């Protein structure tokens, strides 16, 4: 047993849901107890999807266990086929259903469903979300790819590529895809298929028609790409175009495979990051020590950008997905740091404290750790949070992605001249480095430490009008303290205004609640 307060990855069937939800015309019948439907809200709330994930949960209960849970599964599968009329289904079990061993694959095989049903074996007690997504994508492609549809001879036609990996709940997948399409367009390459995002099962059947594959997210698509290499002899582009140099390498590699001229794509005039980084204002970025943690692909890319394109110093590098630990270990060698491969966020916190970086690049969990420690932070990787789905276009890939990364990483830092002033006047109680950058509305000072306590003592106390003390009865004052601190000030002001308005000399409990009723809306 592993004691866990928080996890970077969900169970593997959530990975399968990410594939099903990304696609169109595919339905997931999941043998699962009541409660597993919580996963729906990841998609409808975090990603703000306007459609329910295409998942039918069998919802078995304790009283079904002695009886026929297999029948329950078959009924659910049949009903889902009738109601949703999918082109194909994936069928499998969540962690609990795995234990009762009903074999959803075998059950659907015996059912004569009107569409193909692809069985998934996702061992919940060994594997996690990314693995589940990769395995599901692989099974979907393996079952649906039509082996008779292969790339036609070029004969002067543009090359065709599959873009593999974007899913639902992916970190900026939506926007990355726009950038990649733009690059392919400039190179004159046709997109044969994007998968799994927005692909239908019948689209998948034509996957063999491409000349090559582009693996955007190896965590999701590497398994599929290797199978396609074997089956259709399609080469794969594995350079991840995050950062300027990686985007250039990506363009060159793709152009070479397609026999296209890379010059127009390489000359994209919207690539501002190189000049922004070279401009004199960025000098203060030099040698800033950054700690990097995330999924392997994003962490490795971030380290390269940090070191080579922004002039930071990488003082820590790690990932939570063991399946890709090798990539991180190799990268860590380049920067002379010890790789941190763990899914225990407490271990990551310890490593950050130990490394004492000037900035943290991590997931939402590292953002919280950094906030607690009073360190600037930017988010570079899943697991995703509602903030990772901005309304605006905000890619990580391509030249525009590099522009976005420059802004996102530099913004949390204290700016050049301000940093100098902070160093010069460190003793000023409201002007110390712990107060954070002045262009941020919410400062996040360190919450503990003697320095802060000293400063608080020096700080001038706010002037309190003398009559306030008698205005409130003790009881009302105590009651006010029970109101959450972030609305307490407003409650106090409202109540006092109300009391003044009503000509009440004292604020007792009734006044407090009369005021609350008065302002209720």
């Amino acid at each position, binding site marked *: 047993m592993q004691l866990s307060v928080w996890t970077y990855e969900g169970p593997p069937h959530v990975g399968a849901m990410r594939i099903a939800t990304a696609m169109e015309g595919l339905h997931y019948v999941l043998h699962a107890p009541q409660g597993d*439907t919580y996963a729906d809200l990841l998609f*409808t*709330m975090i990603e703000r*999807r306007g459609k329910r994930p295409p998942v039918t949960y069998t919802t078995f209960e304790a009283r079904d266990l002695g009886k026929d849970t297999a029948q329950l599964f078959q009924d659910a599968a049949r009903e889902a086929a009738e109601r949703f009329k999918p082109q194909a289904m994936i069928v499998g079990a969540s962690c*609990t259903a795995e234990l009762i061993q009903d074999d959803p694959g075998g059950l659907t095989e015996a059912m004569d469903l009107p569409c193909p049903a692809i069985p998934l074996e996702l061992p919940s007690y060994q594997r996690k979300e990314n693995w589940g997504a990769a395995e599901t994508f692989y099974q979907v492609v393996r079952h649906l790819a039509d082996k008779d549809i292969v790339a036609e001879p070029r004969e002067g036609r543009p090359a065709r590529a599959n873009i593999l990996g974007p899913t639902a709940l992916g970190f900026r997948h939506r926007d990355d895809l726009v950038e990649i399409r733009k690059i392919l367009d400039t190179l004159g390459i046709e997109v044969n298929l994007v998968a799994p995002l927005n692909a239908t099962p019948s689209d998948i059947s034509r996957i063999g028609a491409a000349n090559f594959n582009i693996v955007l997210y190896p965590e999701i698509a590497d398994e599929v790409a290797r199978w396609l290499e074997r089956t259709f002899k399609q080469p794969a582009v594995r350079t991840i175009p995050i950062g300027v140099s990686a985007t250039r390498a990506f363009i060159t590699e793709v152009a070479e495979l397609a026999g296209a001229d890379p010059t127009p794509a390489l000359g994209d005039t919207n690539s501002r990051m190189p000049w922004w980084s070279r401009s004199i204002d960025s000098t203060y970025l030099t040698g800033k020590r950054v700690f990097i943690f995330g999924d392997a692909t994003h962490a490795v890319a971030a380290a390269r950008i940090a070191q080579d394109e922004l002039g930071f110093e990488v003082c820590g590098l790690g990932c939570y997905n063991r399946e890709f630990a090798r990539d991180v270990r190799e990268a860590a060698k380049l920067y002379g740091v010890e790789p941190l491969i763990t899914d225990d966020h407490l271990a990551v916190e310890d490593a950050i404290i130990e490394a004492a970086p000037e900035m943290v690049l991590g997931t939402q969990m590292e953002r919280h750790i950094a906030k607690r420690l009073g360190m600037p932070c930017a988010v570079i990787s899943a697991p995703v949070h509602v903030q990772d789905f901005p309304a605006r276009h905000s890619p990580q890939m391509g030249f525009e992605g590099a522009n976005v990364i420059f802004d996102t990483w530099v913004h949390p830092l204290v700016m050049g001249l301000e940093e100098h002033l902070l160093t010069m006047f460190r003793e000023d109680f409201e002007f110390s480095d712990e107060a954070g950058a002045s262009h941020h509305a919410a400062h996040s000072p360190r919450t503990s430490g003697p320095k802060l306590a000293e400063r608080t003592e020096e700080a001038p106390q706010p002037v309190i009008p003398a009559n306030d003390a008698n205005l409130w009865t003790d009881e009302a004052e105590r009651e006010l303290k029970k109101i959450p601190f972030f609305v307490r000030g407003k409650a106090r002001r409202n109540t006092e205004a109300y009391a003044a308005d009503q000509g009440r000399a004292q604020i007792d409990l009734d006044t407090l*609640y009369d005021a609350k009723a008065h302002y209720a809306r």
Partner: protein
Amino acid sequence: MNAPTSLPGCDSQQARPILRERGQREVFCGLTGIVWLHRKMQDAFFLVVGSRTCAHLLQSAAGVMIFAEPRFATAIMEERDLAGMVDCQDELDRVVNRLLARRPDIKTLFLVGSCPSEVIKLDLGKAAERLGARHMPQVRILNYSGSGIETTFTQGEDACLAALVPEMPRQAKDAPKQLLIVGALPDIVEDQFLRLFDQLGIDDVGVLPARNARDLPPVGPNTRYLLAQPFLADTAMALEGRGAKRIDALFPFGAEGTTGWLHAAAREFGIDEMHFNRVVAPGRERAKRAIEHSRAALEGKRISFLPDSQLEVPLARFLATELGMEPVEVGTPYLHRAHCAQELDLIPPSARISEGQHVDRQLDRVREDKPDLTVCGLGLANPLESEGFTTKWAIELVFSPIHGFDQAGDLAELFARPMRRRDRLEV
């Protein structure tokens, strides 16, 4: 729809037809109760014995609250636990010992069963007994199940409180009649109620759960208990088992519900009617005034509840009787007919009461009914909004103070806000 139609699955033996359904349920499991229980009981820790899914559910449902050093965690079972390579009970001992060593402030530890632990029949009762023998008196170790195969959302609190009942001290034989409030309430609401009972002249009021899980109130044949929540069937049974008797009442939502709830207790304790009216009148009036602010947005509007917390029936009653809303369908995961009898009597007969869920069929009915407001879970709200329905997240009703006179306005506002927002937006 003017009369309850006889829908398939209706139980015509009962006083009013109830549509009972089975199928996919779009609800949380009982583990979710930990999210508020661990804040309510400040000396308690909740250790879920389950899978990665359980841990993922808790962090998804708890959202950012997890970062304030939560008093809950998951012991995630792994392949070697299931394959018999290690003894689950030994593993549990190891995890619990480590946890208690790190958190000496824990006075009560709940071992919480999950779907996988129930399915492999991991005996957490035995584990609690064994670990309790080692850690008492510093730490009391209890167990209950929050698994989805047995509990729906708020039933997790029911199971937790029911596990506390045997731990409550025995009331003295000659003790005077004592009032016990049952159900986790926000601290501020609990204090308001205690103050009201004090003013009424009912003193020595016990509360379950107490803020410190170690300060449990006594229970016995002289206990009269008042349910503050409609989802406490097992807790009520356990209390009856210890001789306590339930005071039948409306649930304390809105001006009338709260008055009815207090009145039932006052009658049971022989409080003079004049005195009762004097004590209750200011709060009741205040509640009515506060509710008025939302009337324009809600009066005459049609509302459907999808099953979530079992609060649906009392809330539908509040909206119908105090704000003039028209309940179209009132879906609840489980209906306790006895506890909700008074509530059901006040819900207009035109409303369809449904129990259990077949989510696809229920959504078909919503599309046909076209209510002005649909109360539903987070998994359904945005999809319904994008179809053009106005929705209210049900979970907010569980995570906000909504009981009592001084929250009645807030409760009405929770329903009025989505309606007003819809009217206001021009995008």
